[in-house]
């Protein structure tokens, strides 16, 4: 992978010696019909953020579920934290999954639980004392700017707030990998920017590897062209010509991986579908 674009000085560096956090090798999956994903091979390095682009229905969400073992591939291998989970039993998968965090497309919050209980779901299962739980929930909600929703139920939240609560739930235990499934899908531009800012903040503050699925190019480019300024407590654009070196792209078309590379490589790709998608 040739990171031709200049890198931002404040961005965390990749750890070249560490093995990939996620690796897919020749993965294929089908559901009662033609394959949804065919022979997918790529990896996610520590501290790397990979943006999965592609039109709707191309298998992007399926890809994330495969990585977390929520779906099993028919062919190929999925390695999560160095362990092959392709044929691993559900019980053995739970400890591995608990090291990752996932933000689902519509938030997937539990309607019958309060925001506090949703965000603290994992902590409650681990029998963490209530006081510790409350303080960690408030900290996570503060990260997404939603402290006031502590006692509310999800149905009373807007779509954007639900996504932010879902991000808080995914981040509360400081995961070693974060999967975002179309976190800005169906949201207005202002709320989308708020969500992207949170993702940039998570990337630059905690340097946790992430996979983000989206079909919105604007969100993808914002992630690449911005960094989080801790002093100003907001996202700021990188100097002209600079991009985040740890943020790279994958593109899917008709179930196949047709692009794997940096923003610069994406912009200069001659693949007809990539050109069409970018235009």
């Amino acid at each position: 992978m040739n990171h031709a674009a200049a890198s931002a000085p404040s961005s965390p560096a990749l750890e070249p010696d560490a093995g990939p956090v996620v690796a897919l090798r020749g993965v294929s999956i089908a559901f009662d019909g033609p394959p949804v994903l065919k022979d997918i091979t790529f990896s996610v390095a520590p501290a790397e953020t990979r943006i999965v682009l592609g039109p709707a229905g191309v298998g992007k969400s399926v890809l994330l579920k495969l990585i977390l073992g929520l779906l099993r591939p028919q062919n190929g291998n999925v390695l999560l934290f160095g362990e092959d989970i392709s044929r691993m039993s559900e019980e053995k998968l739970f400890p591995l999954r608990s090291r990752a965090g996932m933000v689902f497309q519509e938030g997937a919050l539990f309607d019958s639980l309060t925001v506090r209980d949703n965000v603290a779901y994992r902590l409650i299962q681990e029998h963490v004392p209530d006081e510790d739980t409350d303080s960690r929930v408030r900290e996570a909600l503060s990260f997404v700017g939603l402290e006031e929703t502590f006692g509310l139920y999800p149905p009373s939240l807007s779509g954007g707030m639900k996504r932010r609560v879902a991000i808080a739930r995914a981040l509360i235990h400081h995961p070693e990998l974060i999967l975002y499934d179309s976190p800005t899908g169906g949201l207005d531009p202002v709320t989308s920017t708020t969500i992207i800012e949170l993702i940039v903040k998570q990337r630059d503050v905690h340097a946790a590897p992430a996979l983000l699925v989206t079909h919105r190019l604007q969100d993808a480019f914002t992630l690449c062209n911005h960094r989080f300024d801790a002093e100003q407590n907001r996202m700021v654009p990188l100097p002209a010509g600079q991009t985040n070196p740890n943020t790279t792209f994958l593109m899917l078309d008709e179930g196949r991986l047709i692009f794997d590379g940096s923003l610069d490589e994406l912009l200069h790709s001659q693949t007809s579908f990539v050109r069409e998608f970018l235009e």
Partner: protein
Amino acid sequence: MAFIAIDRTAKQIVLTVQEYSLFAGRAFLNLFRPPIYWTDFLIQSDIIGFGSLPIVILSGFFTGGVLALQSSATLSAFGAAAVTGQFVSLTMVRELGAVLTGIMVSGRNASSIASELGSMVVTEQIDAMRALGVDPMRKLVTPRIFACIAMLLFLTIVADAFGIAGGAAVTVFLNHQDGTQYFHMAYEHLHYPDIIQGLVKPLFFGYLLGSIGCFYGMRTTGGTEGVGRATISAVVNSSVLIIAVDFLITHVLLAIFA
């Protein structure tokens, strides 16, 4: 063409039976393996048990009343109206109390379990739970099945009691017969094998309606329309299976106690 359709349907039925057997078997084993979510069990027991109390009381009471009306009319022809109490109590305790409760609770709770879990599946809440490191089989399915089994046992006892009371009300106030005689006959001819028959059945019925409700809920596909289909399948299949299994259990128990 027709042969292909029949072949496909038959395979689908066999596959469903196989999947249900695996699902029900795993859920059954989870009843005895930690972690057991006791809080969820208590919440479900309240919803299934206490929530079903009014319909079980009403259906039991009026069924007992109808039994007394019908049996009294027939028995009077033979000068045996005095055994109405025996007829009502034996019918309720051995058979109708358990079956009626099973079907009523199935209509109320198999449907609600299937629709609740189905909604959770289509909104990715089940996937989210798995992603959060919690097994939905243990957290959602096992407490519901456990609660169905435990509560159906108690609800059947309530239905039996109110069925006998309904028969007594009809006997005394409509048929103008002696209430003491009714209760004496009801009690005198009720033996332990009858009670055991009546209390073994709800254990099976509870397991059936709980596991079928959970099974159809957890395999929901196709959005909100799929939730509707899952709910219908859960109610229809659990009701029919309760009656079919009742026949088998009765056959076995009669052979044992004979």
